[in-house]
């Protein structure tokens, strides 16, 4: 597919611009934190950029935790199908 046929949103230079725009917005939200006071009464939430780093860190934590759990819990898509198709008919059980 040539560059012309690709949707503008998928072109490399535009993806780069989107990233730059996103990072600018992120910085603005942190800057805005200087002008307001969080008052949830615990103290820590009023430190600058608390919600920014807390959101980031907890999300990374959740993704990593899910990934690790996945090693234990993930099974092929047809994991249950294999079994249910065999059912009671195997082992030569007769239906009378």
């Amino acid at each position, binding site marked *: 597919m040539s560059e012309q046929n690709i949707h503008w949103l998928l072109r490399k230079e535009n993806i780069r611009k989107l990233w730059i725009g996103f990072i600018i917005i992120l910085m603005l939200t942190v800057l805005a934190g200087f002008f307001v006071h969080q008052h949830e009464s615990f103290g820590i939430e009023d430190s600058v950029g608390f919600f920014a780093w807390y959101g980031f860190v907890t999300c990374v934590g959740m993704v*990593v935790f899910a990934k690790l759990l996945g090693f234990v819990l993930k099974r092929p898509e047809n994991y249950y199908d294999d079994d249910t198709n065999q059912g009671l008919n195997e082992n030569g059980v007769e239906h009378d």
Partner: protein
Amino acid sequence: MTELLLPPGLLLVIGALFMPFGIKVRNLLIFVLPVLCLYFIWSAPADYVVTLPFLGFELVPIKITTVGQLFATIFSLMALIGGIFAYKTASTLELSAAFAYAGSAIGVTLSGDLITLFVFWEIMAIGSTLVIWAARYEGAYRASMRYLMVHLLGGLLLMIGIAGHVVQTGSISFTPLALDSIAQYLILAGFLVNAGAPPLSAWIADAYPEASPSGSVFLSAFTTKTAVFTLLIAFPGTWLLIPIGIYMIFYGIIYALLENDMRRILAYSIVNQVGFMITGIGLGTEMALNGAAAHAFVHIIYKGLLLMSAGAVLYRTGKRSCTDLGGLFQTMPWTALLGIIGALAISSFPFTSGFVTKSMIAQTAADQNLIIVWFALAAASAGVFLHAGIKFPWFVFFQKDSGMRPAEAPRNMLVAMGVLAALCIGLGVYPEPLYAILPFAVNYEPYTAAHLVAQFQLLLFAGLAFFVMLPMMKRTLTISLDVDWFYRKLFSVTDRVGYNLLHSFNRGVTNAIQQSWQGFQSTFQASRLSKYHLASSWPTGSMVMWIGVILGGYLLMDIFFK
């Protein structure tokens, strides 16, 4: 006003039975029934009550309360808008079942006693099972049977609990219940099964994604939220609900992160969202209960919207896995846009409906100095954006180019999605109409500068985490084990071993019984009694004789076992 004699929910249940009488009747009923129901709900005077004596109990089939009205309203609306989404593609079986299901859910929200509640509760289980069934393929049938088993179990717990409660207190009224004995704990457990609480959370993600594109829209709205309603009425402020709710919140996030099926991602996020509501009910203050009720209301709207956009994609492409999808925004721009609005609302993005409701719950945790709960809820808010807010639209509509160029969703689907999207934004910008119908007076202002900044930081940095961690989130062709492993795998293996054991045992016993039966028969036939042997001879005398035997038996039982 017209005197209300039948519960408004019953209107939908009975109306649903007339749907098979032709397509035109059906389509008319789809529009008329919910509108009539809404009319009755709102034209009834405040605290309107209908009572009905039954077996020495005073049933209360209709009791109009503010919470009941709130839930009945959103259920009726969802039946109507779901009907608009479904009426061109869904089977009549599915629509009838969905309306009976919606009607019985409305019945629960307006019932004033535990017996009426239980009857509607069980109709819901049947209606929803039929909705899954209506997808008409083997996988859906199997899933519906697993689903039904879980709900019959929940219904059983509830029934035992209600019976015990009635014996203890003599009261059947559906009001706040004190957790005094095992009976009330069983009622609580019965409600929690339908809410998707642990350990049986898996049924939601197991059954809902197997329904038809429109079926899962109906399913997402009623069962879990009816459970939220009953918990809200019966167990507000029950401390135990806080850890259960928080567990559900994180269960939903983690499993959704592992999931590949787009509708199963959304099903897990139902558990997550109901977790927020249950935490709110556990906190139990007026603001938290308002938050739980309001969050249920808006959740039904945006979850319906999300499942509609997933349903439209499934309908157009026939694909359900993230690994097969991607790049669909190019030819389904409206479905993508409306789905993104739903995704923003579920993430509580400012100026959407989730923002003005969920924060009431977190605010209560802060007010009560429950530090751990508050930190958990804040992390969970970021996690919602991660697992549903970005993951769903990203993998379905963007991601890689799957090469598929499906047509835009049919017009009726777009209309239904458009109405819900408008509600998501409308209630976010102007929440007053919703606040006005909440159970308690609202003294909460969501739009403060501090709250806006906090929420933008939390969500946007969660978004950053998503894109930074994207390589770790590569979708795989897998499912994830859950508690349902026990009844889907372990029991089926033990079943088979057990079945074979039983079968050989059975064969031995059957042979023994057959032989002794044959012996008995030959003795019987030789005796004079043999002419009274039932089906082989027909004289009236033999019937009279056996009735005599039965009555004699009753007499003996009456004498000896009284």
